[in-house]
């Protein structure tokens, strides 16, 4: 039996490279630094951050918006950077894990993740922390149950979930106290 398989419908479209690989200038803030870059429209924000900006704290775990490892903050809101084309970030302010804290000046969440051992292999960790930072800003989660629900877009195969919730609750309570004082 012979069968012919066409890998994808893309094959039926005229070579898209001429348009998709043409570069456009965009401007954005990356971890507080103004950046001007020329980027082709077929480049996702995730791939731009990892391969061009070398901000490899942003992780690729599925490339399909299913795992949350690539979570970054865009204008303070959490987003899967694999689902956003880099050219659409024109004018945005992007914060990656590298911009959230440094070894010398850790974000309280980073410190809490270490303290509560809320990580094992560390691969989902930057996405978890970025997501948690936005979660605290959103102020929708007050209880463990709410944190569990609203952190469920960030998968952790090492199974650190209970420690992740401990770390987030710790910082949530610290920051509530801080704002009450």
């Amino acid at each position, binding site marked *: 039996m012979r069968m*012919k398989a066409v890998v994808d419908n893309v094959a039926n479209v005229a070579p*898209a490279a001429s348009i998709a690989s043409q570069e456009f200038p965009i401007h954005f803030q990356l971890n507080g630094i103004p950046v001007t870059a020329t980027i082709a429209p077929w480049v996702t924000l995730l791939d731009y951050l990892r391969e061009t900006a070398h901000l490899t704290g942003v992780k690729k775990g599925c490339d*399909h918006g299913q795992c949350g490892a690539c979570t970054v903050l865009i204008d303070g809101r959490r987003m899967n950077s694999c689902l956003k084309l880099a050219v659409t970030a024109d004018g945005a302010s992007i914060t990656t894990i590298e911009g959230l804290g440094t070894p010398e000046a850790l974000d309280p969440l980073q410190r809490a993740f270490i303290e509560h051992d809320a990580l094992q*292999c560390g691969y989902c960790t930057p996405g978890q922390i970025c997501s948690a930072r936005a979660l605290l800003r959103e102020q929708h989660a007050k209880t463990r149950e709410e944190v569990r629900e609203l952190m469920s877009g960030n998968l952790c195969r090492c199974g650190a979930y209970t420690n992740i919730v401990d770390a987030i609750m710790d910082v949530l309570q610290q920051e509530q106290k801080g704002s009450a004082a």
Partner: protein
Amino acid sequence: MSASIRIGDSISRIDGVEKVTGSAHYAAEYAIPGLLYGWIVSSDIAKGRVLSIADASARAIAGVVEIITHENRPHLPWLDRNYSDQVAPPGSPFRALYDDKIAFSHQPIALVVADTLEGARDAAALIEVTYEADTFNTDFEVALKEKFEPIRKRLGFWAPKSRGNAVKAFDAASLKHKGTYHLATHHHNPMEMHAATVHWRGDGKITVYDKTQGPQNVQSYIAAIFDFSKDDVRVMNPYVGGAFGSGLRPQYHVYLATLAAKMLERSVRVVMTRQQMFSHVHRPQATQQVSLATDQAGRLQAVMTEATTVTSRFEHYMEGVCNWGLMNYACENASGKYFIAPMDTYTPGDMRAPGAATGMTLFEIAMDEMAYAAGVDPLAFRTLNYSDKNAMDDKPYTSKALREAYAEGAQKFGWERRSPAPRSMHDGRELVGWGMATGMWDAYFMKTTVKAKMDAEGNLELSSAGSDIGTGTRTVMAMVASDTLGIAMDRISVVLGDSDLPTSPVEGGSWMAASTGAAVQVACHALGERLLDAAGNIEGDPLSGAKIDDVIFCDGQIIAKDNPSRSVPIESAMRASGETTLECEETAGPGVAGLLSMLRVSRNSHSAIFAEVKVDEELGVVRVTRIVIAVAAGRILNPRTARSQILGGVVMGIGMALHEETLMDTRFGRFMNHSFAEYHIPVNADIDSIEVIFVNEPDPDVNPLGVKGLGEIGIVSTAAAVANAIFHATGKRVRDLPVTIDKLL
């Protein structure tokens, strides 16, 4: 601060800062000038051969450098042995792009190499392949007709041993249970997808950053296939984004990246897609028939177990499925039989607690059924049939504190408040179920070498080729060194994940802490002797005449045991050595005596798991609201990271109970749900309270540190405890994991 710590202290992992700040680099995260990107093209058919690959439109994409197929690949060796590796099962290892033959769906059939990731991806989508398809089978039920007992066994495989006359005893017994249990295919799905960055250095040497659990295993594999001298291949994996067994054998991404690098004499990176992560190693689907019989009092009279797991057509992968139940319970008549059944898939492989996660889990569901049949409480049933020795091999254990685990776990869980009848416990409109099970795993000890090096300032560096895949190996190594040599934790650095470093086995089997830890201890002992020698050069020789056994190393000092006022700061001893560095490289391993002792005495970890579920009967939704797991695993080096290991195993066990299954479309021979959207691993909302108890189990005989390892015991039988709790809640016995909603409605 010069305070050293003790083994057993609760310590934060020492690579935590790198991991929370994104400065830890994983395999695909090394920037190399002129790097090319490889994109894997996967077969659409499950079996047959490639007739043609039309790549003209792909080559027209800007930046495409080469499209590598079996037709234009460079020379590859012919013999199977070139493609083997340290942990390969018997058979003929897969070789990508070797010829036109296709042996499994999504087999890599081409690699597009381009100067951008996007160019490679786009070009890959333009490649047109024609095939000649062959008949194949990926239906487990059909494969079972071809099951066989492999003659050549995998290294380390222990076949189940029978005793007494189980058939006769079963027939004669008054109370019986017989059931056939099934476990779905699982995929490891570490969060980091398999990736390799090959740095073509231009001097005949390559550096390979790979996602692997064994850099030296990959080093010899790459050298043998691509005709490098081993010294010219350096494999590094300082950080590994989870693996769970998927990185034990070299995977095809590193083969393809090296093939392309060698052919093009360029640096190349290859990252699998999440979909392609379902095209290689996986936990095999399994069926296990368990027959149990007791007397009127519930004492086991017969245990019979027979299991079959899937293998590929080209290799004989096998795992110890039947042994666990035969080892763990006292019963004079027991038998076990194990088969493998070939299918047209990639070869399955070790996934967290291979064999036990399947065999012990399914057996423990059967034990629950037998307990009900005999009218005995499930926990009481297990203590009634408790065996102090390994009942299958008739050997004593170095230690077995399972009784204590049962007691402490039950107490913490509140098991005595359980009402025995199914459907008898409620919480509002939800049914509540309490179930339990026993877990078991091996305590291995593998030959490992570690180098301990002190610099002139008294800072200590430990190094070994082994991998820390998230287990906390780095941290426990530093702890053992701090305890042994009295150095503060912040003065100790640990270098792992580099094939150039002292020899280490692949990271697996829960043997790392015991093995690497023992090697750290002997290397630090040796360094301690050198420091004590050097202390003799200090003016006044405060430790004059003291031998190594006469001193302790603590809080940065070498202190005379008989007179603590006689002491020397370690930094002073180091200075007095007159050297800029002191180095000791030492190997720990079981040795001949240890290997002989392994034949006489069994080494195992044990656990007791208690699960609470709440079931919405109208919707069939099960929530695991509480797990208590009591673990008997010898000495606990670092309770903080140890607990995390168990939590991780339990979470994966909950996945196994409720969610995880890779489903085969047998018409196409392909796993259908090859994404996180459709292959469900537990998410945060699925995981509620998990309490971990480590029971006291001193064991000086198991290995030098008395450590049994924790990477795997947490998953073993967790799914059984959950399934048993579901029965208790609903009265519905599901013998086919996972227990999905459809099976309860």
